[in-house]
């Protein structure tokens, strides 16, 4: 029962007036960025991060994680009311959410979405609570080779498990590494890739990249498609809320299945988006009402929402425990951890139990608060989307650039956000994945340092990655399998004579 007493200590930390207020602020800001087009969870967290530099790490992570929960809820709101997914992970929610709202059941659809999201998140936090104690046992076995192996596993899984072209994922990731090496080298002290520009000595911040790639890039794409909000007026009727809550137990099987899918995809870096699609697909396949899917089937809302939130929550575990984020947003938060002076990884559980368990406890409280707040404020946030875009659009742009400037108060960051915006726009249209680039920018330095420290330990022999322990050998083998998986599957498909070209270009 060690975890339980730790968790109680965590609650004692999280349950203060200041922290509860931070949660409420975080959730509300999160819903706002989730609802606004162009701003999403990774972006919102990046914009808020510079304001937390002076905060106590526990308060800071509570604010950021709460914002994350809020953003996930906000994304579902626009999916259902406007047929516009606020987040990529809530695309699957539009399939049945919007038709249901069109038929006049907006309250029912929203309540179902929020309740299942809350359930998924709770499931995720329980998984984290249970697994966390076990993670600490690994802690002392970790040294540089193990860290490098885990990083490699993460990178490999993004290449091997991605849905698009593996080579596009490689380009995106390697560019991220290249941007991460700009500036002072942590081991030798040399100024790398600065080409004589003094402004580049401090490096290129991953936050600027996220603001450009996700924020500006997405805005440009929204503008290009010509923005139209055909929103459905949502009035939350209390009676409908209770009716929807009462129907929840009937979805128990979908809830459970989707939670498990979400937990798995969140811990392995499959991410919330993949989890929600997979869960929707499985719910449809096992349903007796298959033909109703896509026309406003309640289970078609429950499934993707549960998986989305379960995955989003579980993505926090590998971030805290291994220093390997399971999603782009978790990557940004991990960058924050390092800025606050904490080292993510198993040692965190031993050195800063107050931080770890405070965070986990706040996740329970934050999610309950998020469900209540989002139900109460939906009409207000839906009204924001009715403000004409010629007002709200420039305001979002201003917020993005203010966010870029506040990272380090540098004029250069204003200018850097622009090319990243163009890059994000072009990459998204051509099917280059963006998350690997962000991941590589956050982890690049750490991965390189781990590699070079391992080389110092072994006097330059690569064999250390297989000989050091069985742990490192297992992880390395897994990483290699994942890395070459696209190649292997391509050869298999080729041998079978199926048409594989379409998949690669997609």
């Amino acid at each position, binding site marked *: 029962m060690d975890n339980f007493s730790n968790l109680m200590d965590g609650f004692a930390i999280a349950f203060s007036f200041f922290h509860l207020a931070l949660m409420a602020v975080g959730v509300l800001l999160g819903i706002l960025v989730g609802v606004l087009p162009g701003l999403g969870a990774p972006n919102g967290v990046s914009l808020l991060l510079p304001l937390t530099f002076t905060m106590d790490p526990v308060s800071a992570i509570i604010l950021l994680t709460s914002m994350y929960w809020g953003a996930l809820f906000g994304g579902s709101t626009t999916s259902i009311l406007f047929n516009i997914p606020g987040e990529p992970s809530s695309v699957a929610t539009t399939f049945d959410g919007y038709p249901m709202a069109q038929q006049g059941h907006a309250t029912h659809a929203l309540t179902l979405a929020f309740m299942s999201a809350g359930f998924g998140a709770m499931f995720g936090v329980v998984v984290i609570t249970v697994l966390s104690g076990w993670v600490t046992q690994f802690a002392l076995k970790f040294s540089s080779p193990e860290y490098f192996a885990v990083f490699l596993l993460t990178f490999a899984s993004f290449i091997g498990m991605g849905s698009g072209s593996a080579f596009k994922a490689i380009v995106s990731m390697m*560019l991220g590494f*290249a941007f991460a090496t700009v500036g002072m080298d942590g081991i*030798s002290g040399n100024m790398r890739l600065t080409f004589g520009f003094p402004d580049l000595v401090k490096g290129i911040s991953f936050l600027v990249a996220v603001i450009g790639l996700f924020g*500006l890039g997405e805005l440009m794409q929204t503008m290009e498609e010509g923005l139209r909000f055909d929103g459905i007026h949502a009035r939350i009727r209390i009676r409908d809320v209770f009716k929807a809550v009462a129907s929840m137990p009937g979805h128990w099987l979908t809830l459970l299945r989707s939670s498990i899918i979400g937990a798995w995809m969140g811990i392995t870096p499959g991410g919330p988006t993949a989890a929600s699609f997979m869960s929707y697909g499985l719910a449809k396949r096992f349903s007796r009402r298959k033909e109703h899917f896509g026309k406003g089937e309640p289970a078609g809302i429950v499934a993707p929402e549960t998986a989305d939130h379960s995955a989003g929550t579980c993505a926090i575990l590998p971030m805290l425990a291994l220093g390997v984020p399971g999603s782009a947003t978790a990557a940004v938060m991990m960058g924050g951890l390092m800025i606050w002076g904490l080292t993510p990884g198993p040692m965190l559980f031993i050195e800063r139990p107050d931080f770890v368990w405070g965070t986990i406890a706040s996740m329970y409280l934050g999610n309950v608060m998020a469900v209540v707040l989002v139900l109460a404020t939906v009409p207000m946030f839906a009204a924001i989307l009715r403000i004409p875009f010629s007002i709200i*659009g*420039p305001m979002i*742009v201003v917020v993005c650039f203010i966010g870029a400037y506040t990272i380090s108060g540098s004029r250069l960051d204003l*200018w850097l956000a622009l090319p990243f915006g163009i890059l994000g726009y072009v990459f998204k249209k051509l099917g280059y994945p963006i998350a690997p680039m962000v991941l590589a920018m956050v982890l690049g330095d750490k991965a390189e340092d781990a590699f*070079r420290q391992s080389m110092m330990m072994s006097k*330059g022999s690569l064999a250390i990655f297989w000989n050091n322990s069985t742990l490192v050998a297992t992880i390395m083998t897994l990483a290699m399998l994942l890395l070459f998986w696209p190649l292997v599957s391509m050869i298999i498909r080729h041998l079978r004579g199926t048409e594989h070209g379409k998949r690669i270009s997609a």
Partner: protein
Amino acid sequence: MRTTSGVLLTRFTMEVATALVTGLIGAIVCYGSLEFGIGWGDAGPEPGYFPFYVGLIVIIASAINMGFGIYHHRDRVEEFLTTEQSHRVIAFFGPMFLFVLISSYLGVYVGMILYLFSVMVFQGGYRPHKAIAVSLITAVANYFLFETWFKVPLLKGPLEALIGIH
């Protein structure tokens, strides 16, 4: 699929152009890392080793992407951007670029007032007095939010110095 009329850029062109740009960045990275040695020293890799091979992988993967791009889009029918879409993108990007340009010389506050005002008037068709009100309120709200509440100073220019805000 639409016909090529009104298409400004085809997917073919963009796939090739993007692969060329990423390949070029890879080449720049390779060139830049030559400065500190890309070999394998006594204590493992030298400082330039990691970025050099990263750059090299970017070049190779870009070449493969270009090959796939040329092969899969050789019919050149799929569009990347129509003329109409390009107008919308430029109408958004242009003012944004000017906002950054003005902000970096006159400060973020002046930049945001001019930016919000002109987009509202010239693109949104609002009356000037309404646009002035909205942009001034936004600037003042941001000032109190960042300078007073969060104590994070934003970029200021000569105008703020003139009226004694810094």
